[in-house]
């Protein structure tokens, strides 16, 4: 517990772990349309002093929306010549017992990770999107599906924007919502929370409140009624 007025909106790594557990539990109890978050522990780095386990929250393979069947041909840059060259001769690839399916490729999947930032001392939402076969979804496709995360929308709200940076544990480029302003608006959020009797920063509530704002950008909404009565 901490007096919000003295607080700068950040939280410690230890508190992040506590908050993450509380958040995952609350999320599951809310029985939303989404599967539960899981905690992914990360191998300790021997050169860091922190004794407790590091990790992040993970929510993967989410289908945000179901796109139309008629999806633009996204695939392979195979040239027409390749079909002949790599044909399998006269042997049939499929037989009567194989169901020939319509293109299942049109589904978009999202992975979300909530990772603690040691520099900014706040949680950061990382995400990436891909087609069913694993190909990454380009940002302009993501923006079509999640209009709130387009640069236009974000520049209006002015509290964050999307960058593509290396995931701190997976070491590959992921999109993230930049954490620069997070401390500021978290403080404002807690200050304006009239449900709390005294202005206290409660660690267990931190991630839930944080996500209620951040999640909207990526189409994951927590109905506000769930935040009250905590």
């Amino acid at each position, binding site marked *: 517990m901490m007096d919000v007025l003295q607080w700068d909106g950040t939280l410690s790594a230890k508190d992040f772990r506590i908050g993450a557990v509380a958040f995952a539990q609350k999320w599951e109890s809310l029985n939303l349309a989404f599967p539960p978050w899981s905690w992914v522990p990360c191998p300790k780095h021997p050169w860091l002093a922190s004794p407790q386990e590091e990790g992040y929250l993970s929510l993967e393979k989410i289908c945000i929306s179901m796109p139309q069947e008629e999806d633009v041909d996204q695939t392979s840059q195979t040239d027409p010549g390749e079909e002949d060259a790599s044909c399998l001769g006269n*042997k049939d690839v499929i037989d009567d017992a194989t169901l020939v*399916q319509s293109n299942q490729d049109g589904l978009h999947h999202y992975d979300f990770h909530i990772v603690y930032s040691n520099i900014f001392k706040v949680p950061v939402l990382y995400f990436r999107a891909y087609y069913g076969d694993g190909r990454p979804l380009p940002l302009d496709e993501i923006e079509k599906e999640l209009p709130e995360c387009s640069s236009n929308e974000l520049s209006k709200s002015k509290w964050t924007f999307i960058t593509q940076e290396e995931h701190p544990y997976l070491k590959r480029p992921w999109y993230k919502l930049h954490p620069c302003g997070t401390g500021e608006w978290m403080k404002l959020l807690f200050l304006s929370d009239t449900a709390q009797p005294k202005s206290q920063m409660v660690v267990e509530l931190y991630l839930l409140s944080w996500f209620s704002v951040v999640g909207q950008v990526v189409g994951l909404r927590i109905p506000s009624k769930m935040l009250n009565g905590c």
Partner: protein
Amino acid sequence: MAEEGSGSILQFAPFQSSVDEGFWHRLSSLKLNKFGIDDSPIPISGFYAPCTHPQVSNHLTLVAESLPSDSNEESAMPAVILGNRNRCSVSGILYNTNTMEGFLALDKQGLLKAEAKKIWEDIHSRKAVEDCAVLSRFLLISFSDLKKWSFHYWFAFPALALDPPATLADLRLASQWFTLEEAESVSAQCNEWRNSSETADVPYFLVSIGSDSRAAIRHLKDFEACQHDAQKLLFGFYDPCHLPNNPGWPLRNFLALICARWNLKTVRFLCYRENRGFADLSLSLVGEALITVPQGWREDQSVPNVVGWELNKGRKIPRCINLAKSMDPTRLAVSAADLNLKLMRWRALPSLNLDILFSIKCLLLGAGTLGCQVARMLMAWGVRKITLLDNGRVAISNPLRQSLYTLDDCLNGGDFKATAAVRSLQRIFPAVEAEGVVMAIPMPGHPVSSQEEKSVLEDCKRLNDLIDSHDIIFLLTDTRESRWLPTLLCANSNKVTITSALGFDSFLVMRHGPGPFNSTPGLKAEMENSLSAGMDNLALASTDGGHRLGCYFCNDVVAPTDSTSNRTLDQQCTVTRPGLAPIASALSVELLVGLLHHPHGIFAEAEIANSNNGGNSELPLGILPHQIRGSLPHFQQMTLVGHSSNSCTACCSTVVSEYRKRGMQFILQAINHPTYLEDLTGLTELMRSANSFQLDWDDETEDADDECVEL
């Protein structure tokens, strides 16, 4: 039990592959660091789980951990992939070729048959009963083009084909087939099976229901025992498919196993599917298949026919994925650079005009201490198009102070600075568009012989063309006279010009004012060509002499002459305090950026820093001075204003119009006759009258005008 009669052919929904980006990253890494040109087959693991969504099938997924670990990335991840409830591990084999031709030439049917043979042998040897995941063995062929970062690949999920094919006697939702009690018991038992770490990743099992409607889930190896106990016996498997009328692919080899080992002609199966982590019998299917056991299947005779290559949008072709965006280091460098600038704009400088920075073309005359540092600062601000002009070679003392060179550039007589600088810029940021020009700048007071005349005129023309084709010119040479011709040409074309000059412990950074003729016909076109739309609202300032800001020569009272001959050794080899060049270079670029964001651009009035405005300016980048003069001994810096002079040897209207009239002949005359410029501009007159008055000259001016020659 099952009815006789012809049912429809049982059609299975093919497996679909999904390859996580991380798999390709690790494969590239392994190829580069471990395997090299060795293309022996690589054992890999794939993962799948029962369907978890009524509208989406699950895929066979490959992730980075599917491949053996790359010893360079020392992670504490266990080498053994443990299955869990979300991923049943199945083994596969990867044939990754070294060339595209090799990929196309692979004997695909041969490879598929080889995998089918393994499954066939496992069925007959009982291994498939003990470790049933081997029924879902798969094959992957690929070619990784590590220059273009594209990956060609093709999956095969070998399935032993029944001949004639199995037919379907019945297929319905599991919740409709079981009684309520049975359904409850089956669900509960399945959930237990899925929650136990010993069985969560066992994808084939038996469901045995006793007469008391209680269900039990058993391993395949218990078949003989179950056969007699159970009232109802179903063959269950994790079904990745979601379709209501078709079972998934894993059932194919399961049926092959059942009919080859146990000789059953009717098989009741359970397509096990889940919803949100729990067994869902209204998504799962129960069906009955009728099989005609093919001849020779019971004995381990020849391997049956096999199918299973994955179709790509219905076509028999491989797939291709391009990951340059996330793997190509140059692209990653570019997006990191962009990110930095965009962050700056977002957090501190919303009016930062990145488009103009990315599009301007800068010409740097001089690739020495100033040139190297200005180039680096420009790149840091996002400028991509940089041309460096210098006729010198990198000397062995240069790398210490000229930040683009290293010792390698000095060897064998030394590379040309212009080319070495370009190479260095490209190594720092591959996306830079840098060019080097090896050329000397013709200078007044350095007369040329008639043989040299032709090449000097060519150089003048070349310089003129360079200046015309760039937007911003930096004068960063080491003598005063070498700045004359560029200044004149810039004044003529009204180009943004930034001059920087060093004394021993002082520096000057200034922007030249506009040329004397602002409303020339070529001007508008030039403005459109050079800078962006932001500059369109320029207010055309008054013409010559009045309030036009001056150039480097405007407060000279002598014409530029040969400053290098007849100098003492220490004057020829004068050095500057090392800190000066970086300071002056940095200020030059910051001054330029300020100018680019000023609505009046080259016509902007000068502002000076004083305690009244205290740094507050209407512009977000701050004030836009005309001249900045700094002194290291005092750690002081001043901003000054100098207006153009009617007698300026470089930019006054007399000189510029004379150039316009006579072109190269005029230049040649100025080069060859030391006093020509002074006579032309009336400086000679001015000096005569001045000498009779004994004005004292500002010391500061003289210091800053001292030119120094770098060793």
